[in-house]
């Protein structure tokens, strides 16, 4: 998995590409979030558009990152959820935990509220 981070205002956008599966990308996501929190960046948007596959470990990492960011007083939101990942989040009732957006400007603006 590749993770590219860029800023839009005070929002850090993490663009993920590839698989978030056990042994491949799950730890990398956690490390990326940790580095952002270490430098005080707490408004985080994860773009999942180019994520090709996710498993329960990847879902666990997303949940863990959400909890970590929230506990630090930040906010973590999701952008461009592929249908298969939406299915995987829906069946475990996690879709209601995350704020999900289909449009980047709208997602970035949501952090202003």
């Amino acid at each position, binding site marked *: 998995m590749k993770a590219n981070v860029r800023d839009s205002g005070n929002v850090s956008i993490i663009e993920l590409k590839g698989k978030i599966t056990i042994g491949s990308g799950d730890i990398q996501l956690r490390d990326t979030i940790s580095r952002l929190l270490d430098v005080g960046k707490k408004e985080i948007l994860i773009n999942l558009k180019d994520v090709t596959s996710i*498993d*329960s470990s990847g879902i*666990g990492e997303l*949940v863990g990152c959400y909890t970590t960011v929230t506990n630090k007083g930040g906010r973590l939101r999701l952008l461009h959820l592929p249908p*298969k990942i939406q299915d995987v989040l829906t069946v475990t*009732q996690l879709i209601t*935990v995350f704020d999900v957006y289909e449009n980047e400007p709208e997602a970035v603006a949501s952090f202003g509220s």
Partner: protein
Amino acid sequence: MKTKHVAPVTLSIASSFDNIELAQFVCDYVLRPWSLSADTTHAISMALREGIANAIKHGNGGDAQKRVSLTLQVEGDVFRMSIGDEGRGFEPENVADPLAPENRLKTSGRGIFYMKTFMDDVRYDFSLGGTQVVLEKKLVAEEPE
């Protein structure tokens, strides 16, 4: 939908997560003649990956010396895969419900739930030592355009 049978294809892999990709490749190859729907392909892939990851992590405790077996078979329009490990087995009834409010935000514990959700039937056999999980799914072909 083709109804030909596929004689069992058996794979024995070392307990390394990298080998999940190998198992996925073999499974895709076995099922290629069926031109499966995207939903069926995703369901089988999800269950395969969860089953092998569980066998490596929980069954074999990540011990690279222990093996994971995978058997793939098609009978009629039913796909069956069996995943075996060399662990000590477990009690399925003691597995926590990931939908329970107290478990919803846990970082693990969803693998078996996903297998049950995405496959038609999931059962366990502990009679051979270790855990043998047998998963079945009716094959659904892609709709012709």
